[in-house]
């Protein structure tokens, strides 16, 4: 289809136009097995492919050993064992000898039967290992050299299109040949953002329906600024985006020059701009993009990349390092927010409504041991710099009271053990559930600050799962109802002398900047690479006009109206943003 426009979540702000490279197509099918040889020839072919695969995996393993996390190495390790598994090797040989199958057929058929075997295992953690076997199988098939699908990246300007990309896969891509990444799955899969950012290429994730709309070789536009992907663009669209690409590059450079200027409006209203980060390797981005400390440190990766629960020491070391790098600015550490879209690798029971279920603080309070370990590590690290504590998925005042009790208890423990810590550590609540906004007056008595997570707040207010393509069009954090909830929160918080930050996707949306200033929030926290452009907008606004824009926006009846209105107003003030804000009609 010509000029197909699909929307996703932008994770690295630049633009590229290139050819689709479909990574790991759903099924490698054999249009033609070149020539079936004799039994011995087929066995020899298989053995050659196996040895080649082993060599590749071992090389990859030594490459991955350089990464700070151990998990990718373990994944490769298990694949190496599969390639040496006597049972599996025997089955392939039997199929070739007794059933007279070609090497490729034998591998495909064996994969089919293993798939059934794995499906029978009730423990989902083990049954998912089929994916590793499948990976090995695909590699063997590739190395047989008989499939007609080109798996190697050729030439330049490849846009890698995939359902999802693991850190291992992303690490395997040859840097000089990839000019963009688009994935169907993934919300805040930060490793893609990190790698894309490090390589300075655009990336868009969570693009629903992507794989059904694209084929290898299609022309594709990736706009990592607005999160738009255009498949097979017409000449007109292509020209527009080529221009946007040039213009965006120029503007980003310009913005980056001013990254260290304070985020202060024309009339002297200042706000802190901090970074959202998750991985140790992102620490460098804080300075690079001019962030003032870390406004949101997600800690889920600690739990998701290792098979066992990370111990206190491991966490303590990581949090201390963050505190040290941010100092004298603060780092806000959010406790474990598992559940919902994230999956805990241990066997937790499936829930019918995970987003309304056992996640965030609800999970932590009932998993005392895990929670206390994390709190102890955070408190101990608070002696190394300026650390604040943030609690996710709060919906009831009692939860914050309980958290305070546990923290107090741990402080007593640490005192007895003689560990130093910050006795006045600030404890805040994430504002993600509308009940917290409406009862902010009560919450303000038991928290030191609020941090509004607009992604979940929007989901819960509009009852829209943004990962569900049938309804994701209804999702927009500029919905007037969301703005009103934010207003209530800020008013109550300030009335009680508590400060409010915003750490959701809205903070990186430049169209939304005027209303966030108008709300007079005290801090914005966003993915580092978006910071320069947001700062630039703030420095060109006045608090007075931002307040007026907010008042008008709140009177509107839909997010579409608000967005159009704000975009128009922004362009009046910043004509140079025209190309960055440009979108194509659906």
């Amino acid at each position: 289809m010509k000029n197909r426009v699909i929307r996703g979540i932008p994770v690295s702000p630049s633009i590229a136009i290139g050819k689709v490279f479909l990574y790991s197509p759903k099924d490698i099918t054999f249009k033609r097995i070149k020539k079936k040889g004799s039994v011995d020839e087929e066995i020899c072919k298989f053995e050659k492919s196996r040895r080649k695969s082993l060599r590749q995996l071992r090389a990859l393993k030594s490459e991955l050993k350089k990464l700070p996390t151990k998990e990718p190495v373990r994944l490769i390790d298990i694949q190496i064992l599969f390639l040496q598994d006597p049972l599996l090797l025997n089955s392939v040989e039997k199929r070739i000898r007794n059933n007279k199958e070609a090497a490729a057929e034998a591998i495909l058929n064996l994969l089919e039967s293993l798939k059934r075997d794995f499906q029978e295992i009730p423990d989902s953690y083990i049954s998912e290992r089929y994916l590793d076997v499948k990976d090995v199988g695909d590699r063997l098939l590739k190395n047989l050299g008989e499939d007609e699908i080109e798996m190697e990246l050729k030439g330049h300007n490849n846009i890698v299109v995939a359902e999802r990309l693991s850190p291992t896969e992303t690490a395997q891509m040859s840097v000089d040949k990839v000019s963009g990444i688009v994935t169907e799955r993934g919300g805040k899969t930060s490793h893609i953002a990190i790698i894309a950012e490090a390589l300075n290429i655009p990336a868009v994730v969570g693009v629903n329906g992507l794989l059904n709309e694209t084929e290898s070789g299609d022309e594709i536009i990736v706009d990592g600024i607005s999160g738009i992907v255009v498949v097979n663009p017409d000449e007109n669209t292509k020209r527009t985006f080529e221009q946007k690409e040039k213009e965006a590059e120029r503007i980003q450079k310009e913005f980056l020059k001013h990254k260290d200027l304070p985020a202060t409006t024309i009339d002297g209203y200042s706000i802190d701009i901090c970074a959202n980060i998750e991985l140790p390797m992102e620490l460098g981005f804080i300075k690079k993009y001019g962030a003032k400390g870390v406004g949101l440190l997600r800690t889920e990766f600690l739990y998701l990349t290792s098979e066992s629960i990370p111990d206190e020491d491991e966490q303590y070391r990581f949090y201390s390092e963050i505190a040290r790098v941010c100092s004298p600015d603060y780092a806000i550490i959010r406790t474990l927010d598992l559940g919902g879209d994230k999956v805990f690798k241990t066997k937790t029971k499936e829930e019918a409504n995970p987003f309304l279920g056992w996640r965030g603080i609800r999970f932590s309070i009932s998993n005392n041991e895990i929670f206390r370990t994390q709190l102890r590590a955070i408190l101990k690290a608070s002696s190394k710099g300026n650390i604040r504590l943030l609690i996710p998925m709060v919906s009831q005042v009692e939860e914050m009271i309980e958290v305070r009790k546990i923290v107090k208890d741990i402080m007593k423990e640490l005192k007895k053990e003689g560990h130093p810590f910050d006795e006045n550590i600030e404890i805040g609540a994430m504002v993600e559930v509308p009940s917290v906004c409406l009862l902010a007056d009560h919450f303000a008595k038991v928290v030191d600050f609020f941090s509004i997570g607009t992604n979940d707040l929007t989901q819960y207010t509009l009852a829209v799962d943004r990962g569900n393509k049938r309804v994701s069009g209804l999702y927009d954090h500029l919905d007037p109802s969301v703005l009103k909830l934010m207003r209530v929160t800020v008013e109550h918080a300030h009335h009680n002398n508590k400060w409010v930050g915003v750490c959701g996707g809205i903070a990186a949306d430049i169209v939304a900047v005027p209303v966030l200033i108008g709300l007079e929030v005290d801090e914005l926290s966003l993915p580092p690479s978006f910071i320069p452009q947001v700062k630039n907008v703030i420095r060109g606004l006045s608090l007075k006009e931002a307040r007026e824009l907010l008042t008008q926006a709140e009177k509107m009846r839909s997010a579409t109206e608000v967005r159009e209105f704000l975009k128009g107003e922004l362009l009046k003030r910043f004509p140079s943003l025209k190309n960055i804000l440009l979108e194509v009609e659906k």
Partner: protein
Amino acid sequence: MYQKKTKIKNSLGIHARPASMIVKLASKFESKVELEKDNIDVNAKSIMGVLMLASEKGQEIVVRACGEDEKEAVKAIVELIEKRKFDEE
């Protein structure tokens, strides 16, 4: 032949990483090494086999070896499971 009963003690059971550890360890010995759970025997040098046992915490398994270094093999694997708990805790 030499064999010994043991119990899975680490909290996640024999998932991917412990399975890899067993296979790597078993492969260091000359003897044929097997694991048995609920009357099912698997080759301890096969990652596929060990994963298919799907052993969880608290379950009993038998470690069996046959060959010149059978005693050492069984002892090493039982120690990995019981004492070292796959170096998890």
